[in-house]
């Protein structure tokens, strides 16, 4: 297994920059999710690491060795494709053994290792079946088998669960993470699905327009998003933004929403007057009759253990995740209390988070 280091990686297709100046490191044995909407450059980044695309500029290092311009076949990495790309003219056994064949592994050894891999993935019973008749989950496992049989330096996966139905995807998320825990393979996993990323990854890189907006653990990214884009992309429902106009002094601990003062984590940098947004996760909003921040109930979604209540305030719509046991009537006037320790402040112009005590230890990209 290996460490992957990407330095100032850039990929240009004509006038369009698919990936701009990405730098990150995946430590040995770590599971990194590249997360972002389609067209954000995550797949291009992955394909460059694999050697299926050549970067316009920048470097890719595997275990410190510069492989930027090495052939894909010379990199000793495995890639799981979105549509699995199982060779249709070979059966399961041959598919899994195919990477070993290229390395000149003796037949007996191939047989042994294919069977070992099949046991690990619990697909021993389908080894001699044709791949065309397999169900989605089994195809997925065969694709994984083909990836792990060679014990490569790292795994690259391009939305491998994208074509599975929702119910089965959950099972596979679990299986993939379990597999990772067992073999500790350095993994880069591309997905547009935040749940997959949050559930599996040790680190997440949120990408947008070819740029890595934030790189960090799922907890960091969720609790301390460095931009409104990340705050909005992660979490369902996403973070609420209460927009207001104000300036900030260095060391400020309150902001004025309309005329209502709200306590926030200590601000570390003065900010020119302008449009700001107070970011709050739905679970950090509570209902309190006496609270001075008021709004009218706009609607609610019942989710079983809790409910999402939307409240129209002067600063915008706020969604609150609250226990399911209280009924709200639409139009009802309610008071909102925000959890002061968990609030983020953003500059609406740049979309960036304003440094505060909450962000003290965040790695910015």
């Amino acid at each position, binding site marked *: 297994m290996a460490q992957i280091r990407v330095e100032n990686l850039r990929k240009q297709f004509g006038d369009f920059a698919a990936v701009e100046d990405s730098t990150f490191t995946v430590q040995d044995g770590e599971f990194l999710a590249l997360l972002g909407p389609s067209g954000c450059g995550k797949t291009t980044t992955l394909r460059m690491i*694999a050697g299926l695309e050549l970067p316009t500029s920048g470097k890719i290092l595997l275990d410190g060795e510069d492989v930027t311009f090495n052939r894909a076949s010379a990199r000793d990495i495995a890639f799981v494709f979105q549509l699995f790309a199982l060779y249709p003219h070979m059966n399961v056994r041959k598919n899994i053994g195919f990477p070993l064949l290229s390395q000149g592994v003796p037949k007996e050894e191939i047989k042994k290792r294919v069977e070992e891999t099949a046991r690990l993935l619990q697909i021993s019973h389908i080894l001699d079946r044709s791949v065309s008749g397999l169900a989605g989950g089994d195809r997925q496992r065969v694709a994984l088998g083909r990836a792990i049989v060679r014990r490569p330096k790292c795994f690259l996966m391009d939305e491998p669960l994208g074509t599975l139905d929702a119910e089965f995807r959950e099972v596979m998320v679990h299986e993939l993470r379990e597999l990772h825990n067992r073999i500790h393979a350095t993994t880069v996993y591309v997905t547009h699905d935040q749940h997959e990323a949050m559930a599996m990854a040790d680190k997440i890189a949120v990408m947008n327009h070819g740029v890595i907006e934030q790189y960090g653990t799922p907890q960091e990214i969720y609790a301390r998003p460095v931009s409104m884009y990340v705050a909005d992309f992660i979490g369902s429902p996403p973070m609420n933004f209460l927009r207001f106009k104000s300036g900030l002094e260095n060391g400020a601990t309150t902001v004025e929403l309309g005329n209502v003062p709200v306590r926030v984590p200590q601000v570390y940098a003065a900010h020119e007057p302008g449009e700001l947004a107070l970011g709050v996760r739905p679970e950090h909003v509570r209902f309190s009759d006496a609270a001075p921040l008021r709004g009218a109930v706009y609607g609610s979604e019942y989710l079983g253990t809790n409910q999402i209540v939307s409240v129209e305030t002067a600063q915008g719509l706020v969604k609150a995740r609250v226990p399911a046991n209280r009924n709200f009537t639409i139009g009802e006037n309610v008071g909102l209390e925000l959890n002061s320790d968990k609030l983020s402040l953003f500059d609406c112009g740049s979309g960036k988070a304003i440094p505060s005590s909450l962000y003290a230890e965040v790695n910015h990209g």
Partner: protein
Amino acid sequence: MSSATSAHSVVEPSATTKRIAGIIVVLYAVITMVPLAWIFMTSFKSPPDSISYPPKVVFTPTLEGYCNLFTTRTRQTPEYIQSLGPPQSICDEITRSRNMVIAGPSNYWPRFTNSMVIAFGSTFLAVFLGTLAAYGFSRFRVPLADDLMFFILSTRMMPPIAVAIPIYLMYRELGLSDTALGMILLYTAVNVSLAVWLLKGFIDEIPREYEEAAMIDGYTRLQAFRKVVLPQATTGIAATAIFCLIFAWNEYAFAVLLTSGSAQTSPPFIPTIIGEGGMDWPAVAAGTTIFLVPILVFTILLRKQLLRGITFGAVRK
């Protein structure tokens, strides 16, 4: 439209439609088969039977046509024929009954062999070059790819006879006239455009991920092409090969102009059989029947691929 009372399907044609379609197909098959059946029957007729009017459908089969096809004969006096020993073969016997003796083998087999060498040689070359070119066009960013593809196709747009004279002159200068190599090159040039176009369609349908997966799995692009792309392109390759072979096998215009002796193919040779001693239709029919065999065998062997080839992969599962 009472879907409740009868199991009437919207997509399945009804039984009546199917029956009518079946009758049309059978009729069409019969119509196309009649000339072939006629040629086959004529090849077993005696020369008088072959030109009798009204045409004979019931006749006594004879191998005379085939004997005449494979031999050259000279007329002899009955006394001379009597003086010969017993006939060596059935052909000997038939020939003597016409007051002739076999003088030697005809040129049919050498011409047939020429056809085989030239048709299969040019088909192999056209498909080989076509597959590589089609793969290149399909997978790489080729500058002016669309223009090049059109240019390749445009070689098929004029009738072959329009370029026959310049090619004849060129070949005379180059010493390629009446050589198998010259004919192979010519048919390859004509067929390669068809091969590139057909095969590009087939290769476009093979997802790139397969090769990418193979390259990740440690194979070079060429190995990936051979081990992953080729096996999946077999259908397209087989279909293309049949089309190329049929063209090269049946081609007449270039063959009659550019070959006369050692490299002559069957199509220009078969009509010349008529000239040897009257209208020998059974021999011509026999020559045509044998001429049909290789293409028939090849087509039957690859008929599944041909069917998919004609529909251009539209019936992909």
